[in-house]
């Protein structure tokens, strides 16, 4: 493993560095956990790492609450997400997803931006953010910000829409609807062990109901079931207007079928495609049980 590194201390320096290396072999290093693993296995010749962890910029590292929702800098760590009260109370799906990511040690350094930009189909935080319909801020070397909805952020297996001169700067999640009375929000991660798993299948959901228990907004996303994390739009639409507590067995199954329609899983050493589908169907139903 051999590479060079540059350590920008400010966002301005960061953008200057990105601009300078446009024609060269460079990569960003955030928490570096996935990245170092990859590099240990497949060393890359003449690589320069643009180290993001020394950039001092509250907008890049911090978390901010507003009336519109919550904005997280891309360098916010999984641990900070887990420890945040607002996230735990209002977006349990994100709290649970961050908490189920790898291990205590990894969560100290792993970042939300890293989890997004790795664009793994089994990214836990990314899956939760998809269910929350987060918005991504892509900052280019020109200093301009382009906003992209998370649904459009993932371009394919381990690919994003980020251009070479762009960096993921922040992620915003919309506030829960004002008339929301109850939230049914969770991250279901299926694996062999109770910890240290890379999802075999995962389902993130964030469902809001009004004072009558009627579903007024629903978000559900699936992980490890397709080349990218996918938002199950038709399944979500199907729920709107239904009373959460009164969902029938038939409706549960219809919802699960709709979720499943977004899945095109593969068979690998962790599970077969058939298993992934069966379990995704089952856990989709389980939301209402």
């Amino acid at each position, binding site marked *: 493993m051999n590479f060079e590194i540059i350590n920008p201390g400010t966002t301005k320096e960061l953008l200057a560095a990105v601009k300078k290396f446009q024609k060269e072999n460079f990569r960003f290093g955030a928490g570096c956990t996935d990245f170092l693993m990859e590099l240990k296995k497949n060393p890359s010749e003449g690589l320069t790492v643009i180290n993001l962890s020394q950039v001092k910029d509250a907008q890049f590292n911090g978390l901010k609450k507003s009336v519109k929702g919550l904005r997280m800098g891309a360098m916010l760590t999984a641990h900070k997400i887990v420890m945040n009260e607002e996230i735990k109370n209002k977006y349990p799906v994100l709290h649970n997803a961050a908490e189920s990511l790898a291990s205590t040690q990894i969560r100290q350094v792993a970042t939300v931006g890293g989890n997004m930009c790795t664009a793994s189909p089994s990214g836990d935080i990314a899956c939760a953010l998809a269910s929350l319909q987060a918005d991504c801020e892509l900052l280019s070397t020109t200093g301009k910000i382009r906003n992209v909805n998370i649904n459009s952020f993932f371009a394919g297996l381990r690919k994003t829409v980020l251009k070479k001169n762009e960096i993921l700067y922040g992620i915003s999640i919309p506030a829960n609807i004002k008339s929301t009375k109850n939230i049914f929000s969770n991250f279901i991660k*299926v694996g*062999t*062990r*109770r*910890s*240290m798993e*890379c999802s*075999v299948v995962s389902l993130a959901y964030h469902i809001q109901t009004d004072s009558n228990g009627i579903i007024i907004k629903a978000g559900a996303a699936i992980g490890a079931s397709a080349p990218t994390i996918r938002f199950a739009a038709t399944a979500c639409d199907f729920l709107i207007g239904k009373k959460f507590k009164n969902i029938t067995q038939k409706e549960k199954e219809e919802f699960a079928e709709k979720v499943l329609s977004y899945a095109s899983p593969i068979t690998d*050493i*962790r*599970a*077969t495609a058939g*298993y992934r589908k*069966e*379990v995704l169907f*089952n*856990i989709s*139903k*389980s939301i209402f*049980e």
Partner: protein
Amino acid sequence: MIKKLKIIGTPVPKHDAAIRVSGRAIYGHDIVLPGMLHGAILRTEHPSAIIEFIDVSEAKKLSGVICIITADDADVNNIGYKRDHPILKKGEANCTRDEIAAVAAETKEIARKALNLIKVKYKIRKGIYETSEALKESAPQINKFSSGKFENKNIAEKFHYEHGNIEEEKKKSAHIISRKFTLPRMTHACMASSNITASFNNIDKKLLLYSSTQVPFLYQRDMAHALKMNPSDIRVIQPVIGGGFGSKLDMHPFEPICALLSIKTGRPVQLIYSREEEFIASPIRQPMEIELTAGVDKKGNFTFREINIVKDNGAYTSWGATTPFVIMQAFSSLYKIKACRFNSTAVYTNNVFAGSFRGYGNPQATFALERVIDLLADELGMDKAEIRLLNANEKGEATGQGLHYETCGHKECLETVIKKSNYKQHAAHNRQSGRFLHGTGLASMLHVGGGAKIYRSDGCGTILKIDPYGYCTIITGSNEIGQGSETVLAMIASEELGIELKKIKVINTDTDIKPWDVGVHASRTSFVAGNSLLGAIKILKVKLNKKAAELLKTNHSNFDYSDNKIISLKSNDSIALDKVVREMHFSEPNELAIADYFYEPSSKFQDKNFKGNVSGTYAFASQAVEVEVDTYTGNVRVLNVYVAQDVGRVLNPLLLDGQIEGGVVQGIGYALTEELLMKEGKILNPNFHNYKMLTAADVPDIHFFPVETIDKEGPYGAKGVGEASLIPTAAAIANAVCNALDVEILELPITPEKVLAAIAGKKKLKTEKI
């Protein structure tokens, strides 16, 4: 009369725990010697290939590379239990682990770089990865060094055993069940990867090895054979060992390779496996298929067992090939069984070869055996606890194989777990509907508890001395691999000599110093080394008593040793132990306070039909396990494990708990999550991410109830405990899952995917029936 014990039976923390918890213990990874080089091994790219040529010229040019060796540079003998294993491979590769070349370089990075510069031309062959393929007439001979004494060229080893009249017992059977079980590859995954530091001194031609072997004296001999040296010119020093579990019973090729690199360079060479290498190139638990047919009469008495086992030997033969010694014992002698016929065949393939692993074949055997007991109970309509209690082993029993149970806690173990787990209530109420289903399962085990007389001696030597300051040094042949044997020995010395623990040192790491011992295996160390120490203490006390009597001006030798003093039981006069030792040393007839003793267990070699009382004593255990099965995902969660084990006597409850809990958790891994996956001879999951050892978050509540039977052969009545706790766990879990789901499990590990498939299979059966 046994006097009241002061130390034995108390929860003394591990002797050197403070050193280990401070990061001060020196493991193989931490050794740095002056001028030390770093070794690395190039392994084959293909599990079955002709090696057309090896070109090391580019690698040799790399600055910092000191030495590169291939088979052509090595004048060595084959290694392994059957001497069928060349340490560096020439002409062909037969297994994904095969060592093609080795490098010694100034740094680890240079050594690794050099490996990439070695060019090897392979002609890929079609490998043989199934035992059934290997046994075909048309199959090529996989190991050209095989003994060739069997009817098929690819048979590495065979065992046949029988007792009783099978045909008679079949006639008496009301029900006969026949099943085939498949057992996976499990690997030790010690937290410290395999390592060795070799230092050959080309002035005096002596070889010093810092090695993590579990069997230093056998290792010294194997190493000498491999390198064509005199064993006594090889000194083996064991650094602190980061986990053993049987993995270090065989000498592996990397060890003589590292020694060779040191011999060739005249400099110390260190070789440490990466984690990936550890998964690829260290031993595994034997994968096998077990066909078991067993019968029961109408009252529930077991009648016979008939067993055919095919083991995947892999490309070379290790000690693992001898696991049928233990496997047949479980089948012949766990529960009363009137007739048994056992056949096992180990077959060469191009897969990775097995080694020994805690339990030594017994977890596999027990899984098959205990699953079939549940099936027999179902056929009879008999309670699964009752059928076990009816057939349980008893004190005084001599089994068909000739094992003598002088003490036997089997029934008590069963009764304990049945009661403590509320087994009967659970079993009756487990049937429920919904997503999560609960099940309860039982299993027992029998294992050697007083060594196993397999090698020419099952003995252990001790040298014991007390210095003029009253400190005691125990030089023992046995060694410490984390299990706590040092602590137990120190406790015994403290108990008997009345010396406080902090004044007791245990020296056990150096073959130049310590007396012979066969090694750490077969749950033997506390039993054998403990008895050996007691023997030495007895001899030393004769000397000490004599001097004490002289100094106390008495003519009896009725002394108590406590508080660093020798106390006359008649007059209550006392004298400090250190003073007695000084008087021995410095006044006539000037002798040392030193004694040595070699303990050989009373066990017997088995005859050629494998009959005989092979161990000094036998350990029994039963476990009851409660599981919860998620029928949506197939995940099995172990909720509670109840363990009752006949340990003879509890020597140290703290260390004993540690052995039990550690074993149970390994057993749960074997049952549910751990499998080294192979395809076409290659390992698919050589990392902790996909080889799934349990984490702290997965651990259930483990309830342990020691059963004390006070065996007269054991130190203070103790039996060996190290392996027992993992042996019945997988079987009990499988029985619990079957109980929860009303399905049949014939294979480990019971992965979520297999659980859902079993549920789906049952649904299908049901609809067909309707």
